[in-house]
């Protein structure tokens, strides 16, 4: 069995009075792509945002049960949240590059974590942009505004920005849903390549995307984890009738 990076046991998350996750237990193995699928409001994004504690920003959030990163409780006192978020990066649904130059976007993370010196920063920026498959397109416009890039380029820039702090885990929250088909295909290829560098948790609405990009898939419904397993098995031989209906496109 592969090494487990993130482990949830009986995880419960609620906002105000609304229960968003009910007793979810899930293991995320290292250096694999794990896709979280399910209809809107099923809790998959809540699960994702629990891992890097972006849930903390939502008012009235309550977390119970156990959620660990390298066996240390994410919601316990052992994790400094800034340290956690450096090691667990996130890419969002809508591309959200900062209104700065391409270079400054990628250098932002290393800079706040204390990396100094032009040479080192330039090295990190180039390596991150290469890893995100964007270097050839932007090498001549590093000083230009990131907002002048196309949507697909912006999203790959956001991936490069996340990679620049060398996270062990990359959380991706429907990262292709605002992109055109060509850009989507490029980002999906990228996700497959990135598994060499880090563990990826991918929330997606697109079943084909989960089939193409994910090693393992977990199906959420109404805050519960219905079924999980290797992607090929889950799509071809689902054990739960609800999973069967969902992957057959009968609802959601």
């Amino acid at each position, binding site marked *: 069995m592969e090494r487990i990076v993130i482990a949830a046991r009986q995880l419960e998350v609620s906002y105000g009075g609304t229960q968003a996750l009910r007793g979810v237990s899930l293991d995320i193995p290292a250096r694999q792509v794990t896709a979280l699928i399910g209809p809107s409001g099923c809790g998959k994004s809540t699960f994702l945002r629990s891992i890097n504690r972006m849930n903390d920003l939502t008012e009235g959030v309550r977390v119970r049960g156990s959620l660990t990163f390298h066996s240390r409780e994410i919601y316990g006192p052992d994790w400094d949240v800034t340290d956690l978020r*450096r090691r667990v990066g996130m890419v969002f649904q809508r591309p959200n590059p*900062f209104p*700065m130059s391409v270079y400054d976007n990628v250098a932002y993370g290393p800079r706040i*974590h204390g990396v100094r010196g032009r040479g080192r920063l330039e090295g990190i920026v180039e390596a991150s942009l290469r890893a995100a498959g964007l270097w050839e397109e932007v090498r001549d416009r590093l000083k230009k505004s990131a907002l002048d890039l196309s949507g697909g380029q912006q999203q790959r820039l956001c991936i490069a920005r996340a990679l620049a702090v060398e996270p062990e885990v990359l959380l991706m929250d429907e990262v292709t849903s605002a992109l055109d088909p060509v850009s989507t295909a490029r980002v999906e290829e990228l996700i497959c390549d990135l598994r060499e560098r880090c563990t990826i948790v991918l929330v997606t609405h697109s079943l084909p995307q989960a089939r193409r990009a994910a090693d393992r898939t977990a199906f959420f419904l109404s805050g519960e984890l219905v079924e999980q397993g290797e992607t090929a098995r889950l799509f071809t031989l689902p054990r739960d009738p609800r999973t069967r209906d969902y992957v057959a496109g009968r609802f959601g």
Partner: protein
Amino acid sequence: MTRRWAERVMGLLFLLCGLTAVALLALIAAYLFLSGLPAIRELGLGPFLLGRTWDPDTLQFGILPLLLASLWATAGAVVLGVPAGFFTALFLAKAAPPRLAGLVRGAVDLLAGMPSVVVGLVGMTVLVPLLRERLSLPAGDTLLAAILMLAVMLLPPVIAVSQDALAAVPAAYEEASLALGATPEETWLRVTAPAARSGLAAAAALGVGRALGEATAVLMVAGNVANMPSLLSSVRLLTTGIAIEMNYAAPGSLHRQALFSIALVLFVLVVLVNILLTLALRRGRGAR
């Protein structure tokens, strides 16, 4: 049919309102140039702007002391007041617990609505004696007093505009920064504030305009002697010069014309500030 007519009429009405504002500005500008130019023509632009003596009794109308006093007072007030206002806005928009923010906002609004003569009164009875005693000066009415007074008076507009600018920054930028492991404070200073920079620059420009144009409150604390300015001596500003002397300058006299020329200089300065700001913003937008 009637609706289209109504829309057309309303459109015209709005156009008219807009044009009125433009026309009024044009009128003021024309009036200032017409009434401000004769004295400059008579005295010569160089002697008028760079003359070191302002003495209506001997018909010496050099505004350099007033001009410099205005520029120093404005610069000092902006250096003190704009950063203070900006950080207050940051606190209100991002960091403050809601109840405290409400309290501070109320206080700022109150300060904004305070007539400048009242602020001046406080300055005259509290600030001026305090400066005199603390710095053991012969008199507390100084450039320093004017600077402090103006710094306080430019706070409310600077706070209001900066706060709007900061609040308008998309949450997605801040999320991205936090998700990279930045603290909230790092996020505000390194992402939110730069993203709001055009609004913050507008706030600063508003502060400059406010400081440059304020007359009443400074009149009451500056001492109003047309010295070449120094921090701890009494000064007369462009605005206070006009305010004090307009009453006794005989209509049609060179003195009165020279006061209008001062008004023209003030007008040109304010327009200049706005042009510089617009250029700076355009450049900032280009580079982003």
